[in-house]
């Protein structure tokens, strides 16, 4: 994945709770065997509505998706992360993320910023009032900054995940460096463990 140090830009305010990955990308879009082209499927059941927030001109080119609580719950489909990133978002802010979605994001360089509900509500109102509001997400310092609102708060990220984000590292390569450790572990597995071969 590519290195991510700072995400800076405007946000789309998606004001609803419980946006599951079936809403982010419906299952019809999951039949592709390629890894690209999923931006067209992003929120596809809602985008037909011209009033849907992402269709509004003032939000074109936004880099941050500002979501309600329980964003990305449900299915493990990584296509949800691909769709969000391929559409052009680099970060998602929410008071609470679905765990598999949040984990998938760390494998692709999509920054998930979890914040307090109260701050989320305040930001939601602010972005709705001023679509040009500038948001800065600093992955190096782990700070969320909104200068116009005097907001400057820390957010959490696992240290290893942060390291991979900053360096753009592939974690399969990192694990493969432990090949000897894995072999040693394998030699200690109980003999009764099954093999899948027919």
């Amino acid at each position, binding site marked *: 994945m590519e290195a991510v140090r700072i995400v800076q830009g405007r946000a789309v305010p998606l004001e*609803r*709770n*419980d946006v*599951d990955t*079936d*809403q982010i990308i*419906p*299952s*019809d879009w*999951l*039949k*592709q*065997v*390629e*890894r690209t082209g999923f931006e067209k499927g992003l929120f596809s*059941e809602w985008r037909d509505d011209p009033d849907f927030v992402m269709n509004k001109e003032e939000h074109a080119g936004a880099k941050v998706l500002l979501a*309600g*609580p*329980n964003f990305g*719950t*449900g*299915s*493990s489909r*990584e*296509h949800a992360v691909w769709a969000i990133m391929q559409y052009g978002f680099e970060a998602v802010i929410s008071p*609470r993320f*679905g*765990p*598999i979605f949040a*984990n*998938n994001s760390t*494998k*692709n360089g999509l920054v998930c910023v979890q914040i307090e*509900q109260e701050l989320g509500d305040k930001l939601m109102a602010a972005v709705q009032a001023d679509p040009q509001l500038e948001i800065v997400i600093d992955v190096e310092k782990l700070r969320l900054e909104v200068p116009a609102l005097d907001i400057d708060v820390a957010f959490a990220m*696992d*240290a*290893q995940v942060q390291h991979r984000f900053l360096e753009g590292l592939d*974690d*399969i390569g990192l*694990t*493969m*460096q*432990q*090949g*000897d*450790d*894995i072999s*040693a*572990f*394998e030699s200690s*597995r*109980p*003999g*009764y*463990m*099954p*093999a*899948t*071969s*027919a």
Partner: protein
Amino acid sequence: MSTQPPTNTPRTLSQKVWDNHVVPSSTSDAADNGSALLYIDLHLVHEVTSPQAFEGLRMTGRTVRRPDLTVATEDHNVPTENQHLPIPDEIGRKQVDTLRSNTAEFGITNYPMGHKNQGIVHVIGPELGLTLPGMTVVCGDSHTSTHGAFGAIAFGIGTSEVEHVLATQTLPQLAQETMAITINGELPEGATAKDVVLAVLARTGTSGGIGAIAEYRGSVIESLSMEGRMTVCNMSIEWGAKAGLIAPDETTFEYLKGRQHAPQGEAWDEAVAAWRELKTDEGATFDREIIMDGSECVPHITWGTNPGQVAPIDSTVPNPADYDDAGEADACTRALEYMDLTPGMAMRDIVVDTVFIGSCTNSRIEDLRAAAAVAKGHKVKDGMRTLVVPGSGLVQEQAIAEGLDQIFIEAGFDWREPGCSMCLAMNADRLAPGERSASTSNRNFEGRQGRGGRTHLVSPEVAAATAILGHVATPGDLA
């Protein structure tokens, strides 16, 4: 260097299984936050979340480390009629063909449509004896938690992690909290395993388990069959838990003995001796605990657009005004609008046009027996569309041997071939806009069963009774 605590420290079941799978690092100190590299004992693969992972292996010149710990099947997008013919949907067919060529290229066993071992990944793993107590099991599917019913740590992963496991047979994992869902007492008359997990969802909502591996325990859980335990563990992700598991006991060993890949002879005895240690130690503590009583687990139904929007069948559709939290009230309003329901109406007054019995939650032989017992001697309501989709070729075979297919057919149900089917509408089995189902699956999200479709999650028994009466009903209503 090892993250394992001294063996005399009381540990929970999930801590034991976790500790048994930590790959010690010879080059670096263990992370102080409890994260670890976990060895994976069983990797289940299907056509939808694997193509990009295999492509990643090819692009980086990597291979599959342990094809002998990996098994694939075709389930998500396969048709449930005429499986002997080519898949009519060209894109779906290409995805299945891609799985076949990828598994052939990398030496992985694949059970294709028509093979008796083919079926929903979470049905075939246990029935083939590939899922065993104390294992780590992963799959690119969020309902992998099903396998926790055997005392395994089992969880869903994304496609990048599928690639990671294919290449290394391990996964770096962040530490999780431990959680207990203790359900004491006994189940009320007419209640099922599905009602147990729906009642848990009524308590926790969709996020109560985030950050935790949950152990279901207590007399109600112990009283469940393996099929019932799988139903409960299956929906762990719906309330946000990383995984859900149940300590193995005699019920578990009885289920496993003699299955195709289960240990035999002396290896069986050795395995059972080890599995008996897989329980939470006296004195071990959980980071979180929810204590429930079996009496809470009356027949439930979802009324909204996430599985946490659920209530007893004997109750009424809620009112947004009942919620203190503005976000939840808004979610209720939005859900009622999508579902076209009115606050205060009785659940039994909800009229459905479609009934789906199937999915990794409720498509096992016991589920089909339960639904058939309700259907026997009745006819489905005129105009009702009904699908009964067995979870695997083996379930299908067993059901036919027991004559269950004939009971369903005589009652007017549509008896189908195995697959995920209308649970997620990746094949032709789907709701049209405005159609409403009673479904034994696990998700009632907007559009989950087809764009504009409305889903009510229920047990197989309630699904069968609803098919007969045409409105939401329990078997007791048929008298």
